[in-house]
């Protein structure tokens, strides 16, 4: 029933976007397009609804009609005309959020990478004359980014990592401020570049794990997982994919759509049929919104139960996640997270007395995961904390 969704509109837009030169690999921010508001991408967000999932929904294109209407309404209410960066418009004060939003509109660009590039733009446009000033400015920018969406783990983690990576360098000891600054910009761009490429690295790393004739269960739409499967298909591997439907935003439909285009045999299963199909499955592949310190992952709702089922049937669960999603969080249980809420369309009106669980994600503890494919290499869950300790301490 995916055709009933609004996805075809966005598909078309995406195809248009694909025709454009690939700006995402360069460092120039994309021109703010008018279509962004038409896409329903909110520039301001409703505090009750996770901005992260709004962006994802916009990018991943399977949007229910009433959500689209709602988002558009929100966008109209609080829509400022998109600003260009201060480099282009020196009268306006530079706002990291705007730059971030511009970057964020690129469907292929992860939110964290957008944040990283926005922060790089902060350094570039900074008028600070001392290192300390610059650092404080950067800190402020990253704080405002983090505050902009507290539910997005990768945004927070990306900002933190950027601060670590960029500011922890001997560049700060240069006597000449300008050379130090240019060094920082260089580092920032390098970091952006690394983050951008990480998906390809992960795809390469995980090829060894996909063998001919295997059946892979995927959940939701993850760009990394899609990259992995795409590369496997390009490498002429023979494999079959089971896509879960991915309620409520039905991102699984989108994935099955994309995979069908690559001529990969795909079967759609509804979310509740995971256990039913598990005995045919050879491995489970999921993405992650965030990888936490215990080595567990935070991902789209339903990942935990799939991991539980897979674990009880001794099937490996592989996670593909870029290292900028490593966050210094340590949830002890499902409720130990800032909830990321998301509207859910049940198709029929829900009586007001009935409560709806609207959380968009769950936490999968490390003992149910087999391996994590990251751009740092193929890691066991316990190594995540190693890496985090080394990154942050």
């Amino acid at each position: 029933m995916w055709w009933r969704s609004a996805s075809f509109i966005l598909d078309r837009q995406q195809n248009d976007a694909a025709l454009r030169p690939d700006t995402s690999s360069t460092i120039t921010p994309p021109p703010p397009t008018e279509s962004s508001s038409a896409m329903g991408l909110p520039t301001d967000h409703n505090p009750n609804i996770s901005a992260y999932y709004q962006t994802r929904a916009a990018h991943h294109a399977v949007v229910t009609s009433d959500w689209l209407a709602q988002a558009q309404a929100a966008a109209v209410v609080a829509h400022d005309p998109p600003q260009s960066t201060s480099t282009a418009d020196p009268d306006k004060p530079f706002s990291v959020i705007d730059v971030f939003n511009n970057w964020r509109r690129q469907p292929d660009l992860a939110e964290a990478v957008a944040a990283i590039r926005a922060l790089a733009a902060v350094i570039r446009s900074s008028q600070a004359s001392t290192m300390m000033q610059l650092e404080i400015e950067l800190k402020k920018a990253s704080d405002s980014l983090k505050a902009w969406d507290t539910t997005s783990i990768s945004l927070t983690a990306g900002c933190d990592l950027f601060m670590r990576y960029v500011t922890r360098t001997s560049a700060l000891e240069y006597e000449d401020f300008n050379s130090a600054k240019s060094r920082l910009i260089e580092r920032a761009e390098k970091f952006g570049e690394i983050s951008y490429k990480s998906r390809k690295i992960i795809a390469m790393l995980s090829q060894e794990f996909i063998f001919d004739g295997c059946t892979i269960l995927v959940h939701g739409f993850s760009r990394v997982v899609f990259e992995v499967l795409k590369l496997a298909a390009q490498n002429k591997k023979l494999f079959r994919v089971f896509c879960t439907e991915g309620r409520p935003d039905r991102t699984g439909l989108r994935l099955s759509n994309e995979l069908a285009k690559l001529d990969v045999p795909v079967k759609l299963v509804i979310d509740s049929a995971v256990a039913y199909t598990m005995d045919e499955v050879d491995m489970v592949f999921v993405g992650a919104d965030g990888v936490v310190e215990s080595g567990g992952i935070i991902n789209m709702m339903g990942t935990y139960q799939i991991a539980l089922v897979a674990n009880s049937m001794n099937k490996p669960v592989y996670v593909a996640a870029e290292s900028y999603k490593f966050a210094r969080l340590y949830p002890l249980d499902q409720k130990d997270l800032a909830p990321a809420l998301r509207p859910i369309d049940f198709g029929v009106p829900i009586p007001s007395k009935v409560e709806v669980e609207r959380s968009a994600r769950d936490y999968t503890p490390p003992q149910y995961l087999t391996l994590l494919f990251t751009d740092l290499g193929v890691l066991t869950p316990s190594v995540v904390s190693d890496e985090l300790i080394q990154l942050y301490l």
Partner: protein
Amino acid sequence: MDPSRRAPRSAIDPVPKFRQVGFFTPGAPPERSQSGPPDPTHSTPVSDVSQSANSLSPVMIPPPRHLSDNLVIHARPTLASPLRADSLAGGGVSSFGDFFPAPMSPATPASSSYSSRMAAGEGSFFERHGGGGDKGNNAGKVASSFPRGGFDLTAMKKVSGIGGGGGGGSGVGVPASELTTVSVVNDSLAIHEKEKANRGGGSAVEVKDQSTGSKQQKPKTTKAERRALQESQRAAKAAAKAEGNKASGAATSVNAKPAKAAKPTPKVDNAAVAASEKKGGDCPPEKDRKKDVPQPRMQYDDKSRVEKAKRRAVVKQTEARNRVELFRHLPQYEHGSQLPDLESKFFHLDPVHPAVYKVGLQYLSGDICGANARCIAMFQAFQEAIKDYRVPPEKTLVRDLTAKIGSYVSFLNECRPISISMGNAIRFLKSRIAKLPLTLSESEAKVSLQSDIERFISEKIVLANKVIVKHAVTKIRDGDVLLTYGSSSAVEMILLHAHELGKQFRVVVVDSRPKLRGQLLLRRLLEKGLSCEYTHINAVSYIMHEVTRVFLGASSVLSNGTVFSRVGTACVAMVAHAFRVPVIVCCEAYKFHERVQLDSICSNELGDPDIISNVRGREDVKYLDGWANVENLQLLNLIYDATPSDYVSMIVTDYGMVPPTSVPVIVREYGREQVWI
């Protein structure tokens, strides 16, 4: 050592078996044990070893330590003592204390009157234990009059003399390593050998050449040849030494050693053999014993060693009878007698600084318990001791003070076995002493050491606790029911802080006999107005279903994530795990240790069995009166247990919240820093 064991060993001799286990100097040919010109290529790797060996804490299991110390000491070919001291300060001195045998203390955990003194013990957590009036008492005497320290010093001087001896010295060093490796292989025999090696320092090797040397030889030489060679070398060495001076250590201790070993334990046959081979020579009696950090783990089921250790001990303890078979290797004594005995000796024991003595008594009586409190008390006592310390004439501060601290530590160990966290702290202090620049004057050095101690306490304990509280509080939500077991200072601070932040939660304090330290915690929580529930561990499975978080303290956390803590913790953690309640362990990073332990048997502490045999306040319950005379009854009062990492959801340390699998990372990344701050 019964002769029957010895027999197979000599049978092995003709076909020398060559199995190197653990540390050994790479490529050092066994011949070196006989004819060792100082070889710089070997001394270098060796000193590396000493660095790592140096990092062993007294409670640990480190066979390589002694060998490396020997090596470091003996491998120095230079003579000039200031220079030597200089070079030693770089690598070896920190482990210098290790070189000297631990007085294998028949240590006793005495907790005769805890509950009555609980409050006092608790109050002293941050209290300073000033030496008070007796501070100046010993200052002057220190240098001259203590028997133990005095011996240390002479021994050390002699050792350096050996170094001057050059060839002989380094020759001795290398075999020591081999001996140790061998001893790892043949268990019980080896223990004796190792012990001897420790006792005699490097020189013990000589003795062993007779018995073990042959085993390690490469097959080339026959036994007779080797013996001849040894004999000649020994003669040469003795001659050289006689010329040198009366005290050239190796020869004397070589000779002394067998005699010494033989006398206290005539049963030890190989020692006896050795002794018979070379009697005579000047016996510098206890010279090189009793210095040093307590030897790692003495196996208390080894009768002969226990005998020896007992003779040395300051604290006289009578061994408890009918002990539990599985735990025979741990020390256990009859309680109650030592304290008055020690108290009466207060004014006679010169070598131990009064502040240290006081802390020791407090350990013995159970007034100070809890890892942090014990560690702080110990360090503050050391601070006092260092303040009153004077470098004796013709000694260097670095070496003398290390030995002195070592003797204090062994005294404290006799009072109650040193915990892992204290071991880490001692290791830190010793490395600081070793790292003192030689340019510092005595008073500057003392000030710098005192401030190091101060810093350790404030950074690694007090500040660490604050950071832990900050992290752990984020895991407490409104409406939570938190369960804690026993009394942990970190957990207490967390609960109080969360309460100050206005979080609404309830606390379940689970307690257990015999210490009932939970009551202490309970009282302090109630004073602050927290709503609490109190129960004994028997009811833990009943209470667990309403609990949402379990907070536990730890005595130490080992590298495999095993949490070593008050007995009962494992039980609580397992029940919590079964109920799917997250278990949060709060532990400062200075308590982490690189050791791996799988059970609570091989390293533990035994408490007073009498305490569990009767019930306080219930005079009518005395079914176990006179249990000690019942042959077939054994009481077990364990102090610690090990919680496998599977049952631990999270460890909160000063480096943040980490999973138990990350303990080795922290040990690896920061363990070094902790020592070399």
